[in-house]
């Protein structure tokens, strides 16, 4: 286990580098903007690797086909090819769309996915703490911002003037709200256990030692303390990002990709990218709340957090390749009768356990 020395937050480090003090408003603003650009670009790069390339390669391996392999080494250049292709395609705007909502939906979805990362602690590298901000209400902020995606889904579904899209948008709303409550309740149980909503503190609390097995020191990761909560959170997270077995809102075989049916060109790119950034946001939350955040041996913190985010991404792809889709009625019943009750039980159990640890 590594115990980091007092590290400078990334915006402050940038403010000092450009010569503005970190304690002035101008310094905070400049540092914040530059740091925001760095973090957002890193995430877009991740999503760009995941969307056109990693997803296809992983899925191909599952169903025993080759996947993209012709463009450059291991088919990696398909990312460039796809980006240029999608950006230069004609934007077909169907008749009778609700124009402001149709244009705004991709922006809302992409922005909500990116904004969630403002409070995620990426760990320390070279004495700099890669975290944009660590407000006291970090956990609530992530949940609040991430759930704005439902708004984008409904906007896209309603504005498209397509019956499949409308159904997809409604299904997405029903699913997101049904699984939001278990997700938030399980997140609240983590906050209850550690007594704080600040993500930096939650990560710091998980550095303690849980048990020592000979030379192996097991850290107090919440997934090891309460595996039940971890399983619940993973399941609710799958539903929240709309991946199998909970991909009913898109269901290409039933309602032809739901809210995305009428979107083309750059609008489609934004919807597609924001889905992947949402998966990574879910993965980052899983890592921070349950897997010790950026903690890990040898490698620096940000690398470990990325490894954990990609592990959750690969888990969603595994689920996508192997699990059948649930029907909409089953989806509602699992959410309201199963997950909600289990998460309330988990919450009360945690509350009873807190005084004894």
């Amino acid at each position, binding site marked *: 286990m590594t115990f980091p020395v007092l590290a400078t937050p990334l915006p402050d480090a940038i403010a000092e580098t450009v010569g503005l003090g970190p304690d002035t408003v101008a310094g905070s603003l400049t540092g914040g903007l530059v740091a925001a650009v760095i973090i957002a670009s890193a995430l877009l790069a991740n999503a760009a690797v995941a969307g056109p390339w990693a997803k296809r390669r992983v899925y191909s391996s599952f169903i025993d086909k080759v996947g993209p392999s012709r463009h450059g080494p291991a088919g990696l250049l398909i990312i460039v090819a796809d980006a240029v292709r999608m950006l230069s395609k004609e934007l077909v705007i169907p008749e009778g769309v609700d124009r402001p909502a149709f244009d705004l939906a*991709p922006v809302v979805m992409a922005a909500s996915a990116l904004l969630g990362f403002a409070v995620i602690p990426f760990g320390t590298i070279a004495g700099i703490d890669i975290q944009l901000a660590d407000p006291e209400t970090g956990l609530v902020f992530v949940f609040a911002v991430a759930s704005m995606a439902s708004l984008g889904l409904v906007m896209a579904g309603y504005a498209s003037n397509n019956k499949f899209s409308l159904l997809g948008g409604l299904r997405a709303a029903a699913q997101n709200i049904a699984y939001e409550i278990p997700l938030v309740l399980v997140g609240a149980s983590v906050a209850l256990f550690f007594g704080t909503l600040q993500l930096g503190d939650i990560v710091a609390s998980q550095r303690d030692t849980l048990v020592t097995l000979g030379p192996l020191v097991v850290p107090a990761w919440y997934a090891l303390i309460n595996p039940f909560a971890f399983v619940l959170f993973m399941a609710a997270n799958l539903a929240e990002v709309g991946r199998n077995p909970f991909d009913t809102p898109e269901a290409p075989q039933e309602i032809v990709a739901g809210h995305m049916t009428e979107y083309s060109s750059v609008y489609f790119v934004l919807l597609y990218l924001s889905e992947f950034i949402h998966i990574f946001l879910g993965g980052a939350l899983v890592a921070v709340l349950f897997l010790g955040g950026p903690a890990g041996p040898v490698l620096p913190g940000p690398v470990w957090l990325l490894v954990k985010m990609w592990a959750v991404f690969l888990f969603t792809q595994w689920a996508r390749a192997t699990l059948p889709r649930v029907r909409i009625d089953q989806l509602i019943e699992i959410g309201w009768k199963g997950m909600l009750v289990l998460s309330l039980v988990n919450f009360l159990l945690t509350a009873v356990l807190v005084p004894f640890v």
Partner: protein
Amino acid sequence: MVNPWIAIGALAVVAVVIPVSMMVVSSLLRPSVPETSKRATYESGEVPTGSSRAIRFNIQYYMVALLFVVFDIETVLIFPWTVVYDDAIDKVGLFRALGPMVLFIGILVVGLAWAWRNGAVEWVRSPRADRQRTEQQT
């Protein structure tokens, strides 16, 4: 750092600027060839009939949304309690710290049980869909 929300606001600006700039770049690159039939909405290759905003959909979507409002406000009220809970045990004891929350969640569970019994979380099928189903089976 003066205030952490300055940096968060900066990311909010960046998160909106990136998609918008992608849209601008694309609008400079892409062709525009408007044709009448190209702009028809997709309806499995058929000529689309009627507006999508005039269709009827299942009432269940409204029921679960109504239920969601109740439970979402519940989670909002739970969050402050999670932060003070540990200190509250030390000050007033386990019973007085936990009791009110158990009562609060208990009232909600009674509400959920009521909604459950009345079929609010059960998928309703329209009588017409049920009739069609029995016709297909016979």
